[in-house]
């Protein structure tokens, strides 16, 4: 970030915490739930699940458990993803305001921010912001005389990519090994310490204050396509101006890549790109005019996911890039289920063979089989299926490159 975050007074002067004042003015939890449902907000963590619908699964009423929890997933570790860091370092009060809205709606008096330990600047900005919010009475007991209590606890994690999976995250927060849990029961019903729990991504939460302050129509009007609102989009790789920008959902990929990121560095061409982090399928230059929209990207077999693109140029080895991702996923497997624990290291080994010029047709066949063995429905959680996205699409789009490795018995990109 190029500037320090706003202090609470400056944040308030820019309509900050208006939504909390609206709640204090008599907005009920049901009103808020209806508003968020009506806004069409979809989760920004990767899966794109409608946020209001997720919240509505939390049991309410007299027979429901009194203690409910809100957990913010700030464990940003998806390869190539750098959007939540920007929000927490640049606008921590936006996250806190959103958390107050979410906790109020689901009836949670305690909320944890599950922050990855390496984000030391975010630790600082969030700690300051939380202290400011307590001082101003936005957190703590009887917030603005609403009778609603909320404590926010900043938890710094001790690592591992798998903690981004929401049930693994809950285990980590409980001080256990971060293996994912079986679903059902879903966390909304039985989550943290067995209590109803909502886990939302940082960016999702940061969408809430705007929706409540300015209304559904305003929010829907921001989107240029079928999806409502804006999204943070990032571009990394060898482009002229890598970075992260807030843009309306529905603008074209070209507008992001060429308009914002300035296109490829001189002398490089665009070979392919991952649209939303390391667990998404490759897309090609022919897809540049597709809208950055959940459904539009799904139509060409990939996912918008985190919205942070990783650009592959034509002088970087695609086999090497997929191999790098496979090494990452193999290393980050929690080791619980067999296809992931044994499949990913096998795949990783084969990629090393290719890199060293010993890859064969048989290896290609084994890789193809693993796309199936580790695919959706075959594993305990989404980690290995996530890995099969760049693997399967890479095998499809870069077949010539794999074959060149076999034929030349070396990596043709190495000079």
């Amino acid at each position, binding site marked *: 970030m190029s500037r320090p975050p706003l202090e609470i007074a400056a944040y308030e002067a820019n309509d900050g915490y208006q939504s909390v004042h609206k709640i204090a003015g008599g907005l009920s939890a049901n009103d808020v739930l209806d508003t968020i449902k009506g806004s069409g907000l979809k989760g920004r963590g990767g899966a794109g699940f409608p946020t209001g619908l997720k919240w509505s699964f939390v049991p309410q009423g007299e027979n429901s458990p009194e203690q409910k929890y809100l957990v913010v997933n700030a464990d940003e570790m998806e390869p190539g993803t*750098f959007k939540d*860091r920007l929000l927490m370092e640049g606008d921590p009060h936006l996250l806190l305001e959103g958390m107050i809205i979410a906790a109020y709606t689901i009836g949670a008096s305690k909320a944890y921010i599950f922050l990855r330990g390496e984000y030391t600047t975010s630790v600082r900005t969030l700690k300051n912001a939380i202290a400011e919010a307590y001082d101003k009475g936005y957190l703590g007991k009887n917030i603005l005389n609403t009778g609603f209590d909320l404590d926010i606890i900043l938890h710094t994690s*001790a690592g*591992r990519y798998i903690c981004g999976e929401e049930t693994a995250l809950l285990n980590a927060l*409980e001080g256990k090994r971060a293996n994912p849990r079986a679903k059902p029961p879903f966390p909304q019903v039985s989550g943290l310490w067995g209590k109803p729990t909502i886990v939302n991504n940082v960016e999702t939460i940061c969408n809430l204050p705007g929706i409540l302050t300015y209304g559904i129509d305003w929010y829907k009007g921001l989107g240029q396509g079928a999806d409502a609102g804006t999204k943070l989009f990032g571009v990394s*790789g060898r482009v002229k101006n*890598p970075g992260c920008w807030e843009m309306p959902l529905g603008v074209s990929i070209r507008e992001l890549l060429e308009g914002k990121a300035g296109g490829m560095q001189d002398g490089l061409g665009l070979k392919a790109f991952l649209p939303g982090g390391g667990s998404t399928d490759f897309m090609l230059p022919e897809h540049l005019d597709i809208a950055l929209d959940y459904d539009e990207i799904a139509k060409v077999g990939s996912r918008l996911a985190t919205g942070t693109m*990783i650009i592959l140029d034509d002088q970087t080895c695609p086999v090497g*890039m997929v191999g790098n991702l496979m090494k990452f996923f193999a290393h980050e497997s929690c080791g619980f289920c067999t296809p992931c624990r044994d499949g990913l290291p096998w795949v990783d080994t084969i990629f090393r063979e290719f890199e060293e010029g010993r890859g064969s047709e048989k290896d290609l066949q084994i890789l193809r089989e693993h796309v199936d063995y580790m695919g959706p429905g075959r594993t305990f959680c989404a980690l290995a299926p996530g890995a099969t996205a760049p693997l399967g699409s890479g095998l499809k789009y870069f077949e010539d490159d794999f074959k060149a490795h076999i034929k030349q018995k070396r990596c043709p990109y190495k000079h």
Partner: protein
Amino acid sequence: MSTQVIASTKNRARQLTEEEIAEIEHEKTLYPDNQAVGLEALKIVQKYQGWVSDESLLAIADYLDLSAADLEGVATFFNLVYRQPVGKNVILFCNSVSCWICRCDDIKDHISKKLDIDFGQTTEDDEFTFIPVPCLGDCDNAPVMMVGDDLHRNLTPEKVDEIITQYRNKSA
């Protein structure tokens, strides 16, 4: 739920310091049970001791009445809990995909050569430990790495030399 630490290992536990105990007690107010505090306690002890020795782990298990085996299972799962001694400065080197595309392998080789260590090793003077880390979430500034709590961006061999000198001077 918890089992008693058996006597023979209990004797090996070291005494937790007052500061460590104060911080562990604070964490107890934030979580409903000791199991959750266990992971926090590992991080607290590491902050003061640099790493988590067997003696420290047994002390935490004893203090929080947790199974030492369970706590060991947790300690070895998380990559930021060090169960071996590390150098004064831990280098967390990002080698995930965006950094890889931006040629972080060259930077890695440069560091390895300069410090004469590979991933997982510590320099002879105990100054640096070199560890790979999942994507550090600063991909628009790739390649990146952390040294201790500080993030260093847009790395070049020259910049790495400067950073290493800077940390060496700091502890000299």
